[in-house]
């Protein structure tokens, strides 16, 4: 297992962000080779002293927990919780580790996965800040949001795409509803059919149900069990 210890974090400056943006246009292999030239070039970022380890994690939840305690143990970092330069440098540092032993289908993907884009429709896609924001909001019960924290970091999956895309669901009891419905409590992994297009899927829960009843029903004022009790027949197989 590849573990690298650091005595600082970096905050990319404008030049650092531009160079990272340019590098991300290259094929994955080139990015993996070249990324350390950026993250070790002190002209491209400001150093903030703090001890932390970069190591592989299986799930977004584990990564988010690590990041949460990075902030908890280093109060000086608090002001960087939403800083584009901070999250982008951290993503750059983590990039080779995230692709270590990753499936062949893992791709660099869009820029917002690496460089924090603080638009409402995009911020959750950042591979580090996205899970952290969700964990931070649901703390001390982040496991209630396992539906959007349980997946792989580099391939977050359909559940994240469907549930985390709507912040009114991701940062409310909606995330817990999705967890109860779609996460197998024994394995912690998504149930079969949760990610598909079919009846009762996560896509149906967000687009065809919660976002629709939100017009007439104050569901965020109810608890997860009450909401699940209201779900129509098509969700029955996931209630078990």
């Amino acid at each position, binding site marked *: 297992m590849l573990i690298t210890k650091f005595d600082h974090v970096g905050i990319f400056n404008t030049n650092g962000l531009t160079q990272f943006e340019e590098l991300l246009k290259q094929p994955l292999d080139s990015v993996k080779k070249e990324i350390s030239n950026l993250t070790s070039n002190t002209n491209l970022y400001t150093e903030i002293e703090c001890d932390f380890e970069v190591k592989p994690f299986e799930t977004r939840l584990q990564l988010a927990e690590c990041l949460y305690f990075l902030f908890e143990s280093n109060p000086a970092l608090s002001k960087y919780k*939403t800083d584009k330069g901070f999250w982008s440098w951290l993503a750059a540092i983590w990039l080779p580790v995230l692709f270590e032993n990753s499936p062949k289908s893992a791709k660099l993907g869009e820029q917002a996965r690496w460089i924090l884009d*603080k*638009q409402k429709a995009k911020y959750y896609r950042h591979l580090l800040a996205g899970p952290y*924001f969700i964990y931070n909001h649901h703390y001390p019960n982040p496991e209630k949001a396992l539906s959007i924290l349980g997946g792989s970091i580099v391939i977050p999956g359909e559940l994240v795409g469907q549930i985390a*895309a709507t912040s009114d669901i991701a*940062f409310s009891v909606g995330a817990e509803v999705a967890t109860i419905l779609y996460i197998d409590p024994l394995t912690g992994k998504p149930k079969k059919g949760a990610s598909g297009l079919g009846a009762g899927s996560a896509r149906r829960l967000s687009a065809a149900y919660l*976002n629709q009843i939100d017009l007439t*029903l104050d569901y*965020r*004022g109810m608890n997860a069990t009450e909401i699940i009790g209201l779900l129509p027949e098509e969700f029955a197989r996931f209630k078990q």
Partner: protein
Amino acid sequence: MRASINQTGRKKIPVEEVTIELVDGEFLLFKWNLSDVNLGANFEAVLELSAIGNNMRQVVAVNQIPVSGESKISISNFLIPQSIIGRFKVVNLEKDGIRLITRESQTLRLKNNKLEGEQGKSLLDVHWDQQLNVPWQLIFDDSEPILKVSDQFENAPKIYSHTVFQTSILPEVFKQITFWLLTEDPDENQNIKIGYWWKLAEEYGLTSEDRSYFTSLVEKNFETIKEIDLKCSEVADKFAVRHKIVQKLSNYLIEEEE
């Protein structure tokens, strides 16, 4: 994202009756001055705050509410307070536990310190529309452009966030918005976003002379419309070049092939 059509019989609370504003970055001040406080026998008045990385609910009143008042709400746990938007709703509590919304405000935007540009709420609101037969459509509602994306197959978020979709439509969207500005000359005082759209168009080559010339044309005939259209194409062209739209599309397609 909620659909824009209200066919549910909820009453709208006029936008001027409720406001939110930031106080010292640590608190949010919610003020109301309601024209109608006859809200039924068993209700809760709830303010919902939604921001990048946080959501919050605050019960403002239960079963009775003064005509006017204010509530100071701690938002110290919000990551980006400037990205807050609000929704004030009156909820009727049914005996079976159902919480029916009987009244609600339009989306509340901060009166001060709101984020602009790349952060926070985008200049262009996007609505998913299950009835839309074309992939997208730009409409001009409430004195601002709104992008509607077809949700016929319940995958509007995927369509909207796809690189091919975005790179293909954005210059055209910008062109249509510039055309709207030049032909309709919407009132900037009615909606703050209009001012930002003008500024954006200026950034891409629409000069103040162009603006005064085109908006002062009282009668717009075929020739002047063609002239405006040409100007808008130039602006959209600059937008596409500055944002390397074609390169982004091309890179994406190459990466997909690999």
